[in-house]
Structures are given as C-alpha cells and as structure tokens.
C-alpha cells in the first residue's frame, strides 16, 4: 500500500468510499475519514463543500489512489467472489437486518430493498458489457415481456449465480404472474430458517435483484420469494413476479 497517497479531492462520498476502502492513514484537508452511511450521501446539500487544494485527477500512484472513473470496468478475470465470502457477508446482512425489524415481512422487505439496489447496478453493467462487446453498434435491450423475463432467467441469473435459473413459468392463476424457480439457490444454501420464522425466505434478496432489473427495463412488478420445497430439493425457491397492470396493457398494445 502506497503511503504517499494524495488526499481525496473533496469530501464527496464517492471519494470517501474509494479512499476508505484503501487506507485509513491518509489525512487531507476536507477529507472525511468516517464511513458515510447511505443516508448521508442521499441527503447531502446540493452544493458540494469546497474542494481540497489538490485538484481532481491529481490522484496518482497505485490502484488504491485512482478515481473510480479510472478503474477498468471489464476486468472480470480472477475477480469472482468466493461463495464462502459471500455466505459470510450475507449472514452478516441478515443478522444486521434482523436486529432492526420486528416482523418477518419487514425483514424480507429490507432484504428486497438491498437486492433492488443490486439489481439496478447489475442491469446497467450487463447492458453496457453486451453493448461494448459489439463496439456500441446498435446497443439494444429487450423491450417485450417474454424476452425480458428470459433475459432475467438466463443472463441475470448466470451473472449473479453462475448458472441460469431452473425454470420460468407462467402462473396458472393469473396472466400477469410469472415464476422463476431455482432448485438450489446458491446465495442462501447455508441458511437454515428457524421454525418460528418459517415464513421467511432469505431469497427475498434475489427477489429484490429481479425487481431492480425489471424496473430498470421499464417493467414495474412486485416480486416476492417463496420456498416451495420438494423431496428432491428442500430449498427449492420460487421467485414470484406479479407484473404491474401497466405492463400488461402495454403488451396488449404492442401485440404479437
């Protein structure tokens, strides 16, 4: 770790983030060393505080001092996260969330919100990468319902979990309900739900990812996760997508 890191240009949350992760020894004028919470960054006043003497772009040195705009976006080789690390972090997320809620529904809501934030970013990244793979020649996204759901089922699941989902079906109960099933969801495979919380499914996080992706593709939906165990797959999880009426109306207008 380089010791001659310049101070962050200003106390923008973004810089605080990039430096907080790298080192805690630097101290520059106007630099926040305390970790900012998400709420902090959202409720900031529109006028940023005056910049520190070091101008923007002066960040040199190693990768730790780089601005986030300088970091490559598509360096994926060797940057996969181990499942063990994920399991540990997710366990912390769940227990942290649980200490701040008083019902199972609230807990699921919290996990869904986290997943939603993830989904929004996953979508942007996936679309950007596929567009860049074709050198920005006619960048596209899916705009019809079924291809969108297939995109979630295949691309998004593959990106997040390493393999596509096991099933995509339309509910028999309603035209606007679709189900994405996964027999052994990898994110939550190490989680055992206590008996008194049998309603809980930690896959609510996945539901949030799906909801975030769908919302980004202009398909608002209410997405929930349910554990529907079978003898063969006790952890089989169904992500239930209940589409907004607006989506169904638009599909009717666009036709076949």
């Amino acid at each position: 770790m380089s010791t001659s890191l310049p101070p962050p240009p200003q106390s923008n949350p973004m810089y605080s983030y990039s430096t907080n992760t790298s080192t805690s020894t630097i101290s520059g004028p106007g630099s926040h060393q305390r970790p900012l919470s998400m709420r902090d960054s959202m409720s900031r006043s529109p006028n940023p505080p005056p910049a520190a003497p070091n101008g923007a772009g002066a960040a040199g040195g190693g990768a730790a001092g780089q601005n986030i705009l300088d970091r490559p976006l598509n360096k994926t080789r060797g940057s996969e996260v181990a499942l063990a690390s994920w399991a540990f972090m997710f366990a912390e997320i769940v227990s942290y969330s649980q200490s701040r809620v008083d019902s199972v529904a609230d807990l699921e809501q919290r996990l869904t919100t986290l997943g939603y934030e993830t989904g929004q970013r996953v979508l942007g990244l996936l679309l950007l990468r596929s567009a860049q793979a074709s050198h920005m020649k006619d960048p596209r996204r899916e705009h019809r319902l079924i291809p969108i759901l297939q995109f979630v089922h295949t691309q998004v699941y593959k990106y997040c979990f390493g393999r596509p989902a096991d099933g995509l079906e339309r509910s028999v109960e309603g035209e606007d309900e679709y189900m994405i099933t996964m027999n052994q969801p990898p994110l939550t495979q190490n989680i055992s739900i206590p008996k008194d919380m049998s309603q809980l499914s930690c896959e609510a996080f996945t539901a949030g990812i799906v909801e975030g992706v769908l919302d980004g593709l202009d398909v608002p939906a209410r997405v929930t996760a349910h554990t529907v165990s079978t003898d063969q797959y006790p952890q089989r999880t169904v992500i239930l997508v209940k589409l907004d009426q607006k989506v169904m109306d638009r599909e009717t207008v666009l036709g076949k």
Partner: protein
Amino acid sequence: MSFYLAIVSPLDTPLYELQFGSAKPTATSNSASSSTSSFPSWSTFTGSNGSDASIAAAGAGAGAGASASGSGSTGPGGAGGAGALAANANANLGLLGSGPGGEKHLLQMVAHASLDAVEETSEGTGTLYLKAVDRHNEWTVSAFIAANVKLILLHDQKNDDGIRLFFGDVWELYTKIALNPFHSVNTPIRNPLFETRVRASAKKFL
C-alpha cells in the same frame, strides 16, 4: 456547433448537465470552453417576425384573445396569433432573463420537454440509442436509454455515429459512477473528473 448534455433520473430530475461547444470545426478557438455565444440566440425564440419585447407585449392582449377564441388563423387574427406566440416566448424568456444562466434554463426546458417523446419512442423499440426523437427550432434532441437513467443530448448538426459513440462513452462513465454504493440513481453527479472525461470524449467524437 454546440451541445447540451443532460442525464435525467427516473424521477425526471436532472442529475448532471453540461453545455459545450464542439472542437471539430474551429479547433483553435474553443478547446474546452463552453462559449455561450456559440449557442443559438434568444432571437430564435421570439418569432420569425423579429418582434421585440415591447411589440410582443403590445400584441399580447389581442393575441391572447385571438388564441382563446379558437386560434383563428385568418387575416388579422393570424397575425395576432403569431404575436401571441412571440409574446408567450418572450414571457418565458423574460422570467428566465437573458445571459448564460437563462440559456441554460432554456436548454433544460427543451431537454425535459422532449422526455415524453423519448419515452414514447423507447416503448416500441429495443434500441437504446434514439436518434432525433424531437426537434425544437434548430436543435435536435437525441437520447440514450442507459438502463435507469436517460441521457439527453441537444445538438444542432447531424452526426449519428459520433453521437452514438459519445453516448457509449458517457454511459460507461455513468455506470462507473452508479456502481459506487454511495451513489443512488437519484444522486446528482458532482465528481469533477466526470466533467473532464465527458468533455474529452466530446472532443473525440463530436
């Protein structure tokens, strides 16, 4: 050649705005300056008859009457209608005031007025790059659907390929910003390096 770029959040609030000139035609004069003089002038909004504020104000009463009675476009009514249009334009401009600040508001207005057209167009197609979705006087509005946000560019010359590549660059920059956990889709972008990068890519492609 002048441009105005806006990044618009899902809630239709501007996250980032930038107006700049092009480096291509007169590479010597404006390398990084957003010389406001290169922007279309106010007069383009005050009607073709070149009416100034006082004339338009005088015509405002009669013109308003004419347009209220069903936009009668015959004879003097037509002239009154034109006057009313000019008066309306002038009234808007009067609120904003002239000068660089006012110009920015006007550009912002044009960009946001095109959002309906952008959404209408994007519903029926899968392409992310929507070229020339809207026109306003000499400005053409092109848009890019970057997942959650929309990139809107006002330009006065046709340059499809350049604009597409420019959008691609800005999209990548935005994605990098958006991946930051301290950034939400509705956080305005205040990274000074972002502007530097956008200007650099504008220089390259526009």
